[in-house]
């Protein structure tokens, strides 16, 4: 019997896999970035099916919104062109494709033999912002505060790395 849940899972999953394969097939980075945005939007649908409403909203706003805008802006800023292939890329394909196949077979084996197959009821888990917030600001308060330090360091690192060397020199002289 095919339930609506399964149909929705398959529909969003098909978009995810198609976007991921398109990311590999495209040669221009902007096309890869846009197909990754499609993957992220479809993943938000999967999160909704799993009862994680807040995660789905954050996925769209932060991941597909903020982080991918950063990527698209960098691609525009650097005026990235079509990928060129050299001798090293043949080596990467020769090592990469068998390695990928072995990894996929191992992963499929583990998933098929070692995971339970009980069903997940839709909406069985409260993933609303209230519960998430209580958990995040009570049980996970220390990791939450640590991530704020991490973000601060990342901001400073990004500013230092992306600024022009002459600008740093000028700042030192003053």
């Amino acid at each position: 019997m095919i339930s609506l849940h399964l149909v929705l899972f398959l529909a969003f999953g098909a978009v995810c896999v198609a976007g991921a394969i398109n990311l590999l097939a495209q040669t221009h980075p902007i096309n890869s970035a846009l197909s990754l945005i499609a993957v992220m939007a479809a993943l938000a649908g999967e999160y909704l099916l799993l009862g994680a409403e807040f995660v789905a909203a954050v996925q769209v706003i932060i991941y597909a919104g903020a982080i991918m805008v950063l990527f698209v802006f960098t691609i525009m800023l650097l005026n990235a062109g079509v990928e060129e292939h050299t001798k090293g890329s043949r080596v990467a394909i020769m090592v990469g494709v068998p390695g990928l196949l072995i990894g996929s077979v191992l992963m499929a084996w583990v998933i098929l033999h070692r995971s339970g197959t009980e069903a997940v009821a839709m909406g069985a888990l409260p993933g609303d912002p209230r519960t998430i917030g209580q958990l995040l600001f009570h049980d996970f308060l220390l990791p939450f505060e640590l991530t704020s330090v991490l973000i601060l360091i990342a901001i400073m690192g990004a500013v230092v790395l992306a600024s022009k060397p002459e600008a740093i020199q000028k700042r030192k002289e003053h």
Partner: protein
Amino acid sequence: MVPLSYYLALSGILFACGVAGFLIKRNIITIFLSIELMLNGVNLSFVAFAAHWHQLAGQIFVFFVMVVAAAESAVGLAIIIAVHRTRETLNVDQVNLLKL
């Protein structure tokens, strides 16, 4: 009702596509996008396990993964800009020296 293994299989496919892109692609920005794809695959397995075992902590881990992804992409894209400024290429085959 969708079994947990379906979600894990989708997560594994996304992760494998990310690994393939990381190994096969030559453009440094596309390699970064592949890393993001891998992180997304792992996030899906976190949420699936959270729903399976009724442990909301799995969804909290997703937020931490997102924070780390945001920090990583900010620093990484700054490094890409710096590499592009000194070498004027985005091909990783031509970025084989730490110092110019």
